[in-house]
């Protein structure tokens, strides 16, 4: 910053150029470059967001004229047990996802970072990341077969180990954990890559210094590596939670009705059913604003909390 400022003063400019950059007559250039983005933004993001707020105040089925409902949709949410259920499921999913991804991603990154064998390192990195590039539709269908109670891989090999497997997606206490597991398989590569990149930003000189001071591996990890990686870990935490809270694809594909006893019903699944299956558009909009509010509060909390522990 300071360098460029002093330079600006030191290097004299042609008098004609300086005003033309800032003067009002040239402002249209900026708007011209921005106009496609601005138009699309208003049309598909800002406008619809405002419209969602308006819609949430109405009762509308997309066919008959909308009727004003005031805060009726919001008060109705308080007495909606299925909404509570879907919120609880979503929080469980998002928290489980957060913890398993951060811990798993960090451990895997630490492990792979220590591998000296290049072939093995390439194999592990590739195989961890492979599932992430595959669409959820393909992943969800594949895992329906992998966990099939009669011929699935997991059923067979766990049976060989003497483990009695449940009927994963039809058992109310196993349906959500199954989807948590599949999500781990699909998405861990992303967290892993971010962690690995963060790990490589830890200065070697610090690690060497810690070793020379007699720190063991655990102390080095806890007092040097993790603090130095805290911005990366923080970023991964925010991204993982926001993504997980919007879980929809695998739930809709594997358990189209929201699972046995609504055990896999997520908020987004619920708002999809309300909006596009029973056509309660106003109510669905109100639920979508709830999703927005939760994400905003959690993100702000994470940012606020990060000031206490993220290494700057």
């Amino acid at each position, binding site marked *: 910053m300071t360098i460029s400022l002093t330079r600006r003063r030191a290097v004299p400019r042609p008098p004609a150029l300086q005003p033309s950059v800032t003067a009002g007559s040239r*402002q249209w250039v900026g708007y011209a470059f921005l106009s496609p983005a601005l138009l699309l933004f208003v049309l598909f993001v800002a406008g619809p967001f405002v419209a969602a707020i308006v819609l949430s105040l109405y009762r509308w089925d997309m066919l008959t004229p909308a009727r004003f409902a005031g805060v009726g949709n919001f008060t109705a949410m308080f007495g909606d047990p299925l909404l509570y259920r879907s919120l609880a499921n979503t929080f469980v999913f998002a928290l489980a996802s957060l913890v398993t991804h951060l811990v798993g991603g960090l451990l895997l990154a630490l492990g792979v970072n220590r591998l000296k064998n290049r072939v093995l390192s390439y194999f592990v990195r590739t195989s961890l990341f492979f599932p992430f590039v595959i669409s959820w539709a393909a992943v969800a269908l594949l895992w329906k077969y992998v966990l099939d109670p009669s011929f699935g891989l997991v059923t067979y090999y766990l049976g060989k180990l003497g483990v009695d497997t449940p009927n994963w997606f039809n058992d109310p206490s196993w349906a959500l954990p199954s989807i948590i597991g599949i999500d781990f398989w699909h998405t861990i590569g992303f967290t892993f890559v971010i962690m690995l990149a963060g790990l490589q930003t830890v200065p070697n000189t610090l690690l060497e210094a810690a070793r020379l001071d007699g720190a063991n591996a655990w102390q080095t990890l806890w007092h040097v590596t993790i603090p130095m990686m805290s911005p990366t870990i923080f970023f991964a935490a925010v991204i993982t939670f926001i993504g997980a809270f919007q879980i929809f694809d695998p739930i809709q594909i594997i358990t189209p009705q929201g699972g046995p006893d609504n055990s896999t019903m997520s908020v987004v699944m619920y708002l999809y059913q309300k909006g596009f299956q029973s056509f309660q558009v106003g109510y669905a909009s109100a639920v979508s604003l709830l999703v927005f509010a939760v994400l905003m509060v959690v993100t702000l909390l994470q940012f606020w909390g990060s000031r206490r522990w993220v290494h700057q």
Partner: protein
Amino acid sequence: MGAPVTGATVPVRRRHRIRPARVVLGLVLMVVGVLMVAPLGWLIVQSLTAERAAFSLPPGWLPRPFTLDNFARIDGLVPFGRMALNSLQVSLIATVGSMLVSVLAGYAFSRLRFRGREAILLVMLSALMVPVQTTIIPVFVLMRNLGLVDHLAALWLPALINVFAIFFFRQYFNTIPRELDEAARIDGASHPWILFRIIVPLSGPALAAMTILAFEASWNNYFGPLIFLSSPQHMTLPIGLVTLQAGQGGSSVVVFAAITAVVVPVMVVFLAFQRSFAASIASAGIRG
């Protein structure tokens, strides 16, 4: 021990101390890697196995008897080729279009001065917290009014606005020295010329990262087509897979063949670009 620590002694001592642990670590990670790819291996093997022998127990890890028949049967059940072309069309338009829009906007935010610049950027960034699900219902209503429901345009049109890419490009362009384009401007170069002849050619890694992420998001999109599309000839691959699986007469091996046909090209592309792919995601993560 009293010897001065030199660059030579430290690594040697360390390597001797850690080696057994490293072997165990290597084994553990190898098992993890195998477990990660096992479902994919099983998928491909079953899709190449004749129907009467597929899904046998213990699970077969070689396609015996080998056949390509399962793949030939996909197109009779769902218009697979058509859906692949639809997916390709949507992803290409969405990716190229959104990159163009984002590069222009990123340049405006990085290099041009106009009233409200910071405020507009701030509003756009705060939209990153608005989930798709909040805007999808009004966007659906808008598409219905435009007569675009059940058209591929309903998928790529909203994808053209990519706030994350705009912000990412702005950050990246800010790291390119201003002296470069200011010199060109003194020589009389126009803004489009500067953007496409100076800034864009210097932004290879950023462009690659955002292109890959945009294409991947569009190619794998399930929520969009589920809501906007209804007729089979307009479907994209993710919905096509689920339709095939739920449909009558589609046996499991054919479903596996279809999944394989969708997954393997992505895997090949990924292997080809693995280095830049992982690096770009990592850089997007670190800078984002």
